[in-house]
């Protein structure tokens, strides 16, 4: 059986029904473990004090915000090339989740910035590009909402997603050029790769619960996307049945 068979709406709903309990259970488990561990059982950082605890929310949310857009991009491409309705609806389902993750990253970042940099907000490249990403999410969601015909909406938002991705990358580069910032480099990933440099890397005390949290966010995202895609499929099916009733 090819993977594309799951692009059939009915089959997708059934399959998703099977996996959803497991995924959501695992997501809940990881999130609770990671957050409780991080919040209650990790020491304060010698420089950042207790604010390091924010990392368990901030970093996973930031990662998911970007990855949700990547997933939408892939789903849009699949829709454009193979025209499987489920992938278009999955992209639609993922957008609000990505937007919320962006808001969480922005909010926790801002709250963190106040004690660390002495300001809620600075026009740091990473921060700025997140703000732009948020705008892209808003536009994408608004376009879906504005168009009545479902397939037209899928087509247009898919193209918007493609063009938007290119411009998002461009913006990232532009913003980098425009201002050099305050924000942390990618030290977690280096910690994960066990690279030498002990000064910079996040110590394992923080890293392990952080990875648990990241896993929790990923699983949460997957669970939400599955559920929301199911909902979108059902809503579309309802509309289709109603339309048929009206015509008949």
């Amino acid at each position, binding site marked *: 059986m090819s993977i594309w068979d799951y692009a059939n709406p009915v089959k997708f709903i059934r399959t998703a029904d099977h996996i959803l309990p497991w995924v959501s259970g695992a997501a809940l488990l990881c999130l609770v473990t990671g957050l409780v561990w991080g919040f209650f059982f990790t020491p304060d950082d010698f420089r950042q004090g207790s604010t390091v605890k924010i990392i368990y929310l901030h970093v996973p949310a930031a990662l998911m915000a970007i990855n949700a857009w990547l997933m939408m991009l892939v789903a849009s491409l699949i829709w454009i090339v193979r025209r499987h*309705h489920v992938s278009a609806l999955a992209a639609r389902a993922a957008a609000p989740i990505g937007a919320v993750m962006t808001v969480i990253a922005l909010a926790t970042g801002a709250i963190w910035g106040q004690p660390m940099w002495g300001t809620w907000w600075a026009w740091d490249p990473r921060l700025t590009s997140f703000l732009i990403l948020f705008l892209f999410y808003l536009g994408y969601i608004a376009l879906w909402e504005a168009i009545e*015909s479902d397939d037209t909406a899928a087509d247009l938002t898919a193209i918007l997603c493609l063009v938007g991705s290119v411009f998002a990358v461009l913006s990232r580069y532009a913003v980098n050029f425009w201002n050099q910032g305050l924000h942390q480099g990618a030290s977690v990933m280096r910690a994960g790769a066990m690279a030498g440099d002990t000064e910079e890397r996040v110590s394992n005390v923080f890293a392990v619960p952080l990875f648990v949290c990241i896993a929790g966010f990923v699983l949460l995202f997957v669970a939400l996307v599955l559920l929301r895609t199911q909902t979108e499929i059902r809503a579309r099916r309802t509309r*289709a049945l109603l*339309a048929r009733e009206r015509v008949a």
Partner: protein
Amino acid sequence: MDLIATDLGVARGGVPVLEGVGFVLRPGRALVLRGPNGAGKTTLLRTVAGLQPPLSGRIEGAGERVAYAAHSDGLKAMLTVAENLRFWARVFGTSGIGAALEGFDLTGLSDRLAGTLSAGQKRRLGLARMAVTGRPVWVLDEPTVSLDAGSVTLFAEAVRRHLAAGGSALMATHIDLGLAEAAVLDVAPFRARPGVAAEDEAFL
């Protein structure tokens, strides 16, 4: 070259409206589509004109050979009659708008802004546009709306001239055009079975 539609299915707003439509339109012939409001005549014509893809079946001999006149005339209120017409002539790569103006009795109006024309005059201008496209297949959607009796005759003559020159015409209308020689196709029998919503099929 004939215009041939075979087993054509068309949809509007995602809902199939006609299916299994087939006809052959020879050069020199005219075909009139009939059917009640909402039957799908406009949708069929848009499909033939290439503005939307057919749901099923195929159309041959259309494409670049078709000149399409829709419900709305696409006139610019702030350009004069001659400017409007000349624009379309240039777009279609022809020249000389004199014959078209004369054929639809617009010569006296050629310097008026299109916005100041009456509805019937506007419609005449919209039809004159067909004559400057130089295309062999005219696809006309209710061409005689808001025309008075005299203008309908003018229109019938223009179509006859076009047919005599080897062109053909596909028209949707509710009224009698005075073109006795035209074949008639009633689209009502081709109404699509209800509810096989084209793009929603996967969801049913």
